[in-house]
C-alpha cells in the first residue's frame, strides 16, 4: 500500500490507467491516436507485465470488438481513443449496449471536426458520446477534470459498466489527459470495486428480468450456462424477434435499467451559496477554470454558486435543480461551439435563464467566465 504523502507528477491519462487496474481491468486493446495514446502504451506495459492481455488492434473497430469479445467471455475490458476513433467505434458500442456487454471506452477529446487538431484540447464530443446510440438510450458518461478524478471516475466507469451491464464512456480531453499534476498517490479515494451480477443454476435465460429496470445476471460465453447473444432485437431468450411484446420489453429494459439509477449515477462537485444570483455549471477541463472564476467573482463581491459535473449522463437533473436555488441565471462554460451541454440543460432546467461561455481552439480562461457572470 502506498503511503500517504507519496506525491508524484501524474497525467490524467496515467491515472485512467491506475483506475482501470484498480477496477480489475485485465484486457485492453488500443489503436494509436493523440491524445489517448499514453493510455494505450501504459496499459500495454502494465497488463503485459503481469500476464494479462493488451493487444494492438489494426483499427478502432477491432479494438472495441476485441474488448467486447473478452467481456462476453467474462473479463473486464477497456479501450481508449479520441474523436476520430470514437466515430469508428460507434456501431460496436451500440452492439455492446444491445448485448448488455460491460465495457469502458475512454474518449480523450481533441479539436474536431475530422482530423481537427491532434494536440489541441476540446469538449466537442459531449453529445456524440451520449447520442451515438440509435433509439434514445442513456449511456453513462463521466467527465473527469483532474488526474485524481481520472482515477476515481475510471473505477466508477468500470463499476457502473459491470453493475448495469452496459458500455460506459469516460470522457476527458487533451488538457485533462496529457497535463501532469502533483498528486498524492497515498490519498487516492478508496472506491470499492463492483463485479457484474453472475447467473447461477437452472432456468437461466439470456435476458432475465421481471421488472424492466432489473439487470439480468451475466453468464460468460464458454461457461457452463449456454449463452445466446445478438445485436438484433431479441426476446428474453436472446433470440431474434420482430416487434413481439417481449422483444419490445427487452428494448425498453435497456433504457429502464439505467434511467432508474440516474440518481445513484449522478456525481457532481458543488460549491454553493444559498443566496447566489448565478450558478456556474461546467465539466472536464473547463470546470477548473470555472471554479477559479467563481473564486474571483466572490472576491469581487458577487454571490455565485458552482456545480462541476462528474457525471454528464444521465443528466444529474435533480442535483442541478437543487443547486440552482434562488439563482435566476445559469452560466454553462464548455469548450465547444454553441454550448452542446447547455442544449441538454435547457430541457432539464426549464424557466431558468441559460447563458453560455464557449470557445474553440483553446482553454476557456477564468476571466472569460467572470465576464459572463
Amino acid at each position, binding site marked *: 500500500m502506498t503511503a500517504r504523502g*507519496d*506525491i*508524484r*507528477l501524474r497525467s490524467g491519462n496515467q491515472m485512467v490507467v*491506475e483506475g482501470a*487496474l484498480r477496477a480489475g481491468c485485465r*484486457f485492453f*486493446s488500443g489503436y494509436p491516436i*493523440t491524445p489517448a495514446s499514453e493510455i494505450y502504451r501504459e496499459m500495454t506495459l502494465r497488463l*503485459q*507485465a*503481469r*500476464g*494479462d*492481455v493488451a*493487444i494492438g*488492434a*489494426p*483499427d478502432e*473497430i*477491432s479494438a472495441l*470488438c*476485441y474488448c*467486447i*469479445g*473478452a*467481456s*462476453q*467471455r*467474462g*473479463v473486464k*475490458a477497456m479501450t481508449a481513443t479520441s474523436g476520430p476513433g470514437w466515430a469508428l467505434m460507434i456501431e*460496436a458500442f451500440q*452492439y455492446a449496449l444491445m448485448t448488455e456487454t460491460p465495457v469502458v471506452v475512454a474518449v480523450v477529446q481533441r479539436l474536431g471536426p475530422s482530423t481537427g487538431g491532434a*494536440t489541441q484540447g476540446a469538449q466537442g464530443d459531449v453529445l456524440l458520446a451520449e447520442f451515438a446510440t440509435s433509439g434514445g438510450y442513456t449511456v453513462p458518461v463521466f467527465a473527469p477534470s483532474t488526474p485524481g478524478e481520472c482515477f476515481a471516475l475510471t473505477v466508477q466507469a468500470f463499476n457502473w459498466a459491470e453493475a448495469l451491464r452496459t458500455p460506459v464512456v469516460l470522457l476527458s480531453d487533451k488538457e485533462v489527459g*496529457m*497535463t*501532469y499534476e*502533483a498528486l498524492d*498517490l497515498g490519498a487516492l479515494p478508496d472506491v470499492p470495486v463492483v463485479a457484474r451480477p453472475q447467473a447461477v443454476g437452472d432456468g437461466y435465460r439470456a435476458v432475465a428480468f421481471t421488472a424492466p429496470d432489473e439487470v439480468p445476471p451475466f453468464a*460468460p*460465453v*464458454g461457461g*457452463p450456462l*449456454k*449463452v*445466446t*447473444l*445478438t*445485436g438484433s432485437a431479441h426476446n428474453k431468450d436472446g*433470440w431474434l424477434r420482430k416487434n413481439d411484446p417481449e422483444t419490445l420489453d427487452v428494448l425498453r429494459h435497456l433504457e429502464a435499467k439505467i434511467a432508474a439509477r440516474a440518481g445513484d449515477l449522478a456525481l457532481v462537485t458543488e460549491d454553493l451559496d444559498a443566496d447566489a444570483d448565478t450558478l456556474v455549471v461546467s465539466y472536464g*477541463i473547463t470546470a*477548473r*477554470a470555472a*471554479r*477559479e472564476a467563481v473564486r474571483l467573482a466572490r472576491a469581487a463581491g458577487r454571490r455565485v454558486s458552482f456545480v462541476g459535473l462528474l457525471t454528464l449522463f444521465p443528466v444529474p437533473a435533480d442535483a442541478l435543480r437543487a443547486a440552482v436555488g434562488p439563482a435566476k441565471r445559469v452560466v454553462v462554460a464548455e469548450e465547444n461551439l454553441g454550448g452542446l451541454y447547455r442544449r441538454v440543460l435547457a430541457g432539464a432546467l426549464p424557466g431558468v435563464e441559460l447563458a453560455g461561455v464557449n470557445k474553440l481552439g483553446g*482553454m476557456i*480562461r*477564468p*476571466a472569460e467566465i467572470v465576464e459572463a457572470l
Partner: protein
Amino acid sequence: MTFLAQRPMPYCRGCGHGLVARRLDEALGRLGLDPGRVVLTTDIGCVGLVDPLFPAVHTVHTIHGRSTAVAAGAVLADALCAEGGLTNIVMLGDGGATIGLLHLTQAALMNVDLTVLLHNNMLFGMTGGQHSALTPEGFATSTTLEGNWVPALDMEQILRGSHGGFFARQLATDRELADVIAEAIAFPGFALVEILELCTGFGVPLNELDGKALRATAEAEGKQFGVRIRRTDRRPYHALYRERFPVRAAGPPPATRAAPARAFAHRLTRALGVIVAGSAGERVQTAAAVLAQAAVLSGLCCVQKNDYPVTVGSGFSLSEVKLAPEPILYTGIDAADAVLIASADGLREVKGRRDLERLAPAGVVIVDASLAGELPPGRALAAPLRSTLTADTAALGAVALLVARTGVLERDALLAAVDALGGKDAGALRAAVERGSTLTG
C-alpha cells in the same frame, strides 16, 4: 451426438448454407467436443440465421463483418485470462468478409486460434443480390447485371500474404467438407475454409450456372480446391503471448522511486507560471519536468502542460509549468511570470503565442544569447545557454538560472529532482543545473 436442432432450415430451398450447417454438425460430432466449450460467432446476412440451429453451443450473433474480431477477443480472453480451450467458429458470408477483411487478415497474422467458415455465394444475398469483393469477373448480380467487371479477391492469396496457417477451398456440396471443417477446427491457430455456394435467390436466376459449373467457374479464375495451406511452423498467438508475458502477481506501479525524505524550502506566496520553449528533441520537456518535480519536492502544488507540433521530433517544443502554494484550479498560464527561450524554434513559438506581450508585471524573460538581437533591448536576460551548456541542456540551464535569479526554489531541489526523475543522463542534467545556476547575462 448431433449438435443440430431438429427443425427446418431457415434458408431458401437449395441454398448451400443448410449444407454447411450439416457438415459443421458432423465435424463437431466427429471431434467429440463439449458443446459448452464451443462458440458459434455469426456475422450479419443469411449466414447469421444459423444460431438457433445449434441450441447446445454458445451463439454470439455480431455486427456486419466484425464477427472475427469479437471471436478473437473471446478466444484470447479465454486462453489468457480464463481456463482456455474454447473452440470458436466464425460463420460469415462474402459480404462480411469484404467489410471485415482487416479482421480476417489480422487474426491470420496473429494466428488467433479460431476457425472461419466463409460462406461464399459471391454476392450479398439478404439485401438483394449486390456484388461483393468476392464476386467473380463476369458474374451477374443485381448491381452488375451485365456481369461483374472487376476480378474477385482470392482468399488463398490473402491468407498467404497474412501468414495464415490453414486455408481450404471447397464446394458446399463436396463430400469431404465435414472432414475439412473438422481439420480446420482442430488446427491449432487461425484456419479459414472458403465454401463456394450458389445463392438460389439471386445468383441462380441472374446467371446461367448450376452447381456443377461452380467448380469450373472458380477454376477458370485460377482458384484451386482442397486444403491449400497447412503450416505447422507457427504457434497460436496466445501460446506466444504467454511465453513472452508469464502470469505474475500484480506488483506496485513501475517507475516510481522512493520520494526523497528531505523537503526543500520555497519562497512562493502566489502561483508562478513558467514557460519553457525550445526545439523538439532538445529536452525542453525534461527541463520542465525537473522544475515541476523540484516544486513537488518543495511542497508546492504543480501542473505541467506540454505542447508540440504533431511531428514530435521537429519544430518547437514548449512546456508550461505552474507552481503554487495552494491547489491549482485553472491549469493555463495567461500571463507568464517567466519565459525561458532556449532556441530559435522556441522564440518563434513564444512570439506566435504572444507570451511576451502577455508577460506578467515584473515577469522575467531568459533567452539564449544568440537570439538576443531578436528581442527589444532590455527586454530579456540574454545568457550563453547553448554555448556554455549543450543544445540538449540549454533549457534546463535556463531553468536553473531562473531559480538562481529569483530564489523561488532551492538549487538543491532541482538537483534532487534530477535524481528523482532518474534516467541515464542524470549526470549531464546535474551538471546543467550547476552550470546554469552560475550563468550571468
